[in-house]
């Protein structure tokens, strides 16, 4: 079931196009991560959904209600949208204590006092902030501030919850912990969440689906695994994970050998796609196998980075660098000659 639908959305700042005819459907009860490099328009997208900024074209429909339709001249004020947002820097009101921050949305809506107390108490327990009612934001740690921001967004049980880079200020351990907790709360309350981030790991850690955004457009939407395994464009392949891009070459022998090897290993939904010469092949580092000794394709180890659970190699093969990831059982010295094999590749659009 679709909870929110964004269609034909366009937005300019001056002459610069920030959102370019964007469409996106958000399922009820899912966490959709919108990832993209900074400046791709993802924060602007959130602001349009929340009603904090307008658009030149397009519409936003949430839970059957049209929130924005430039064509029909509809624009619901942000305070009437039943959307909540967790901001990147949390935007906690410094002159309000924790209780006042969290209860604000209820107080503004004139919710009866006892009911308000009950909801705030419940929510504070949910995010594990018990006993911190009287604290002011500056007296809280970063993690606690994050929880207050989350609680503040949860009290109205919003139709849609927006996260704007909300986890990026936390350290790695804390981030993982928050991701688990958010996921738990989300399932408990059956919330629909759009989580905007530039960090692919953060997106993959929490989301059900990922939407990869570039230059004001959504390039691909899909389940996390699907987007990783079957990226449709070079941008997506390069942004979500690392990828080696191989194209047909007539003047470099090693490159053309790699290309033929990759074509044989290509595994696509549409097998005929790679016959198109404009297409590229994308090979994940873990899909490149290296062995010591002779083989059809030969390369030299130029760099090795020990990751603990894996080793990242940079292998010089012909005129190019190949990114390879192996397990830690076999170690190769710098300068060692290795034979190269490709076990899996996908075709992507060259953009």
């Amino acid at each position, binding site marked *: 079931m679709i909870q929110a639908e964004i269609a034909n959305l366009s937005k300019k700042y001056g002459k610069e196009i920030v959102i370019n005819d964007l469409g996106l459907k958000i399922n009820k009860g899912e966490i959709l991560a919108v990832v993209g490099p900074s400046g791709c328009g993802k924060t602007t997208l959130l602001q349009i959904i929340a009603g*904090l*900024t307008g658009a030149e074209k397009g519409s936003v429909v949430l839970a059957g209600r049209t929130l924005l339709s430039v064509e029909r*001249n509809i624009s*619901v004020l942000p*305070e009437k*949208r039943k*959307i909540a*947002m967790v901001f990147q820097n949390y935007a906690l*009101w410094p002159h309000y204590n924790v209780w006042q921050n969290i209860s604000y949305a209820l107080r*503004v809506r004139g919710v009866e006092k006892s009911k308000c107390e009950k909801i705030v108490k419940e929510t504070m327990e949910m995010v594990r902030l018990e006993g911190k009612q009287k604290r002011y934001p500056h007296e809280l740690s970063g993690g606690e501030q994050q929880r207050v921001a989350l609680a503040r967004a949860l009290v109205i049980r919003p139709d849609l919850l927006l996260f704007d880079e909300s986890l990026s200020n936390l350290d790695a351990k804390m981030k993982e912990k928050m991701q688990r907790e958010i996921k738990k709360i989300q399932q408990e309350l059956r919330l629909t969440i759009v989580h905007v981030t530039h960090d692919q790991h953060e997106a993959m850690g929490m989301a059900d689906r990922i939407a990869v955004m570039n230059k004001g457009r959504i390039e691909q939407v899909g389940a996390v695994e699907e987007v990783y395994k079957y990226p449709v464009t070079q941008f997506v392949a390069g942004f979500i994970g690392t990828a080696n891009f191989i194209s047909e070459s007539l003047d470099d022998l090693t490159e053309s050998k790699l290309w033929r090897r990759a074509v044989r290993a290509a595994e696509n939904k549409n097998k005929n796609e790679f016959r198109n010469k404009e297409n590229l092949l994308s090979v994940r580092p873990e899909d490149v196998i290296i062995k010591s000794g002779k083989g059809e394709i030969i390369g030299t180890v130029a760099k090795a980075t020990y990751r603990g659970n894996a080793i990242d190699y940079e292998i010089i093969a012909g005129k190019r660098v190949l990114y390879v990831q192996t397990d830690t059982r076999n170690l190769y010295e710098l300068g060692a000659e290795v034979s190269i094999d490709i076990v899996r590749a996908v075709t992507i659009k060259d953009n």
Partner: protein
Amino acid sequence: MKLRKGKERSQGPLFISGPVILIVLGLVLYPLLMLFLFSLGINLHDPNITGAYYLQALSDIKTMVALKNTLYVAGGVTAAAILLGGGLAWLVARTDIPYKRLIEIIVFLTFTIPSYILAVAWIQLLGRNGFINRLLYEKWQFIAEPLDIYSLEGIILVMALHSFPLVFMALVSALKMNDKTLEMAARLAGAGRIKALFTVTLPLMLPNILSVGLLIFQQTMACFGVAAVIGLPTSNYVLTTRIYSAMSRLDLPSAASTSMILLLCSGVVFCLYNYSLRSKRYINISSQSRKAEPVSLGSWKMPVLISVFLLLSVTTIIPLGSVVATSFLKSWGLSLRFENMTINNYLTIFSGQTIAFRAFFNSITFAFIAATVTAIMGTIISYLSTRTTIKGRKHLEFVATWPVTVPGTVLAVAAVLAWINAPLRIYGTPWILIITYIVACLPFGVRNINGLLQGMDPLLEDAARVSGASWLRTFKDITLPLIAPGIKAGWITAFLLVLREIPISILLYSAGAETIGVLLYSMRSDTGGLETVSAVAVILIVLIVAGNVLIGKFGKPRKEATNDPS
């Protein structure tokens, strides 16, 4: 479902911007435009541009002497204030001199004394019948001739003592913020302490010194009270006093053209000041810089400390003591003995019958109105300028803050020209005073609030909107509480500014609308009134100190100082 057409951030009701723009244009731009046109010789009856007034003013040797005097005084004050304030700042910020906090407080106290009152105090000390001359010349016959305060150097002395706290406060904060590792690096590179001071610390401080110097230069040029009380008795004119005497001769053409000359000089220096503020940003690179080892004064500690406190006695304690002592004297000239003391000077002010009481009543009323209007307009202008996208919002802010470069004397001349003709004739009523006070205060209202709004994350307001609060509710719940300190500071600054304002008051007041400034000024020549003036001054200083404590700025270095309007 409510419709909203805006393509940008929701901006709340913009209908307020129209009236505010009209008020700002009418109050600020219109008088200055009238001044400009009048100085060119343009009026409605004779549309020829002649420029004759300028030729007249520029060819008048007295104007040129006044211009020369103005530059001499401003230059002298700037140099003296930088030496005095800079040296003291270095001692406090970089050495292990004790009682740093006490020194800072005394210096700030000096800053709160209105320059005009400081001048009166120095007349009490250095006038022909002053305390110091009575001691050094009459009693001990230490000097052959009595010291004479009534000279350009006298003006420089008083203005320098009034201005050095600005240098001190600016440089103490700059020295503390400056990256100390730079100086350490110089020491490690082999430079001695003194060499490091002159080759690294001082050059790094130069932009700060330059900008505070320009500010003092501009403020000294704009100063009227001190120049009047010290310069006028011996006909030592500067531009402000020259404008004043032209006004008292009802020579409007001369007043207008001289005003334009002063406005131009002041404007140029102020532009340089602003430019210097913008261009020096690169130097404060301190982030996690460690606190440098303070320079040890060693066996010099006591002598230095004693000299500092001797100096501070001269700059602050003695003048302040003199004013307080005089305020309790039965009559100026009597010696400081218990039987000569009285509290009558204070009682007369509050007796309700006297002109002193009326002046206090008027000043407080006007100050209250001006401060309130300023705070409201400052809030609206700052909000429009930082939170909306309406066209011309930055121009509006510029016009509203422009009067900070305009000396009070010039504002008064412009007000006379603007508000003397029907149907806009309010000249001769208290309203012209109130309006001109508002113009003079507006920059401080705007700046105090603007700073806070700029520093306040707009996401805080967005968060409230998303939480379900309307624009108005957001403004009331979030914006207003967070900018309240700025509004308060702006209000108090404006209130105190009006209380001690002199040139606008004496040029624009009418019978019955006398203010504290008028009272202070009119009693200056009348030595019989010096005790009462001192009592007024003491009350004024108490109010100013209280106000600064309320703003929370007492003894703390400020980023930017307010003009002394006297």
